[in-house]
């Protein structure tokens, strides 16, 4: 058995001031194996990866590559030893060509000049091995994230060639692209590489991986054969407790009697989203489904005033309102949790306290500051209520895990006492535990009488909490499902039916 392990870590220990990030974790990776590394955010996955690649210096334990102890001081050295890493955010240079990205730092040259033709020829040959025939002379950012991901993998496998670490490679890919990526991973596996695969999608774990290692709170919980580990048991291992079954709860009583609080008529903006009609009642969760680019985010941004509508009108409790800016929307007690948390949501260097207080403070205006005591009370209240895991409310928010960042953004809006919350992919990139908590939170807010509009790519989730589901396609609202009609099958049908109608036309 020992012979087949290409990479083995034994008793890896990593401490940070005040916490133990990895508590003597063992990890082994076989030749020609896809090994899933799972755990909630903060379980120690990235810390382990960083110790393996030399981004962090471990405080104890040994790492064996091909049976020989290694001690990489930085990722570059690990790369030379044979351990390549591809991160969720592709870390290549978008303004260089595909070929240049593949051969950066090792361009074929003659007399100090780069032989571009030779480089392009080799790049084509390399990518052909992955079934990708693209113009290698074009700059990388003209291609989709999926293609960029493949280029990153091709480069890492070519440079390193023993171990490949994929850190959430599928987070921003659609189903077809994921399948393409999996094909490539299987090819690399057949070539004898050991592959570490980190993801939040359990579905993909069962499709692709041979073994699973679960970490929790910096400890190794288990390493099992994927085929011998039922899904429910896996979730239990990850969470340490049984997850509530995500099944359709008791249907909300029909609310025809309650008057609509918000009414948008003929609301739209050319080039963004076709005009649509939408009414939302208090205590209602309107789900929004559709493929990427179908106009879901555009709808949300229009309602929140990020882009002003160029047609139609909006009314709140029967009175006309203009939603020309986020400030105008916030004045009507709207709140918006954007899809891209890191870019549009968090203010990274500010503390959790300041991030929570920000929207309320902005609405009060600069001359009426919240006192430090008020901010502290606000922060403590939401850290407790939403179970935000942190050592300290003064910690910069960028140091929190994705799920906790999302909770802070939610807290920022809840602090303003909103009446209408728009959540764009609230559970994306969040671990299973936080996922369930956020869904529970959505249901609770709805019981409290808030109106919610929730965009999600996870149809199970939409089915679980929506009182109505809107289906979008090609920047148009194409269907609305209510009551018993809300099932994943119906949503998929609605998306597909709209597509069929379009191809008929």
């Amino acid at each position, binding site marked *: 058995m020992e012979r087949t392990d290409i990479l083995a870590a034994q008793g890896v220990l990593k401490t940070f001031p005040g916490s133990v990030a990895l508590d003597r974790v063992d990890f082994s990776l076989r030749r020609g194996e896809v090994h899933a590394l799972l755990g909630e955010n903060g379980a120690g996955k990235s810390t382990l990866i960083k110790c393996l690649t030399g981004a962090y210096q471990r405080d104890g334990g040994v790492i064996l590559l091909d049976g020989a102890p290694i001690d990489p001081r930085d990722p570059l050295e690990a790369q030379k030893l044979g351990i390549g890493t591809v991160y969720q955010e592709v870390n290549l240079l978008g303004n260089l060509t595909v070929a240049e990205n593949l051969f950066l730092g090792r361009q074929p040259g003659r007399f100090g000049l780069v032989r571009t033709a030779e480089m392009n020829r080799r790049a084509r040959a390399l990518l052909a091995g992955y079934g990708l025939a693209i113009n290698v002379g074009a700059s990388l950012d003209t291609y989709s994230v999926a293609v960029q991901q493949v280029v990153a993998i091709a480069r890492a496998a070519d440079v390193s060639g023993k171990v490949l670490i994929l850190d959430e490679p599928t987070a921003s890919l659609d189903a077809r692209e994921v399948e393409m990526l999996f094909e490539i991973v299987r090819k690399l596996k057949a070539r004898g590489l050991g592959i570490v695969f980190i993801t939040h999608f359990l579905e993909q774990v069962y499709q692709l991986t041979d073994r699973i290692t679960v970490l929790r709170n910096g400890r190794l919980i288990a390493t099992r054969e994927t085929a011998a580990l039922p899904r429910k048991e896996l979730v239990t291992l990850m969470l340490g407790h049984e997850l509530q079954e995500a099944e359709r709860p008791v249907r909300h009583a029909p609310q025809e009697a309650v008057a609509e609080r918000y009414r948008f008529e003929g609301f739209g903006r050319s080039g963004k989203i076709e005009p649509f009609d939408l009414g939302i009642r208090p205590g209602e969760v309107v789900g929004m489904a559709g493929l990427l680019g179908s106009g879901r985010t555009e709808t949300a941004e229009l309602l929140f005033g990020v882009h002003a509508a160029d047609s139609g009108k909006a009314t709140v409790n029967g009175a006309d309102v203009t939603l020309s800016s986020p400030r105008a929307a916030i004045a009507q007690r709207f709140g918006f949790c954007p899809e891209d948390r890191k870019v549009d949501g*968090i203010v990274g260097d500010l503390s959790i306290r300041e991030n929570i*207080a920000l929207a309320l403070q902005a609405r009060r205006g600069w001359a009426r500051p919240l006192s430090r005591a008020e901010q502290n009370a606000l922060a403590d209240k939401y850290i407790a209520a939403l179970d935000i895991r942190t050592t300290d409310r003064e910690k910069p928010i960028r140091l929190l895990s994705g799920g906790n960042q999302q909770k802070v953004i939610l807290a920022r809006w809840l602090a303003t006492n909103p009446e209408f919350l728009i959540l764009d992919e609230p559970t994306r990139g969040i671990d299973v535990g936080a996922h369930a908590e956020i869904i529970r939170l959505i249901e609770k807010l709805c019981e409290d009488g808030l109106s919610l509009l929730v965009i999600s790519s996870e149809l199970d989730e939409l089915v679980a909490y929506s009182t109505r589901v809107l289906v979008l396609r090609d920047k148009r609202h194409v269907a609305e499902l209510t009551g018993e009609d809300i099932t994943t099958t119906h949503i998929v049908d609605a998306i597909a039916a709209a597509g069929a109608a379009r191809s008929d036309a």
Partner: protein
Amino acid sequence: MNPAVSLLRRLTPQLVALVLILFLIWLVFPSFFSLTVQNGRLYGSLVDVLNRGAPVALLAVGMTVVIATKGIDLSVGAVMAICGAVAAASSVRGDPLAVTLLLAAATGLACGVWNGFLVSVFNIQPIIATLVLMVAGRGIAQLVTEGAILTFVDPALIFIGSGSFAGLPMPVVIWIVFGLCVAVLLRRTALGLLIEAVGINRRASTLAGVNTPVLLMAAYMLSGLCAAIAGVIVTADIRGADANNAGLWLELDAILAVVVGGTSLLGGRFSVVASLIGALIIQAVNTGILLSGFPPEFNLIIKAGIVVVILVVQSPHVETGFSIFLQRADRSGSTEKKQAA
């Protein structure tokens, strides 16, 4: 943590640097700290540092806020020249002091509005947007002075440059009072938080309802106002407006003061008080070099060297290295104690 303690911790590197510089000057010029009182006013090299540092200290106040919004204001030197020229022209015309000062302040604010407009409404990169006025500003100042050095004799205006109050020269009183007022205003209201939020993530702040355009505009207006005050002081000090040389290259010293004060050019967390100390450090270096009697050709080179040392010492890498060093020294010290026992 107690806010006073965290402020002190924030200011420690700057204070240490200032003390070190003053100590070095004292080594080469032992009478540096001697103060004398003549006609109810303090004299001495230390007072001189505070006095000569006034323009850069004032500019650094506005520059800190602009840099905190992830911007930069290259035009402050030229705005100083414009406002000085406006003040001189007004004084020559015979306007009362209040009118002269209001005109100068209004001119500075107008320059800030122009910069703020380009940055917040047209989304032009701050370095380019303010470069426009940096270049054009001296031309405007020359138009105001009609190409000559405009001299004036109004004693009230001259008093601002060379008078004294409570034993201190007027410029010192002005920059300390103004600087502390701005620092208190920013921290006692929510402005400080909102400015930092915009500087760290403008898009997220806008989505959270922060009135970003107005805030950016205000930052550049404050910078313009600071330049106006500095311009009036410089003009009053030499009793004339010199469109070509007033505030020349001071924008660079002001940026340097902010950086030495530990505010990142990438925006976000800032401290006005730290920038004021930064301005003092720079002026102490200038004065120290003059006092030490080096040939003047070396001044700029020595200054550059000292600034590099200060910045390197402040860099996070060195700081971590230093704390590791301290821990090791601590550990070996404790083992020695154990052995002794």
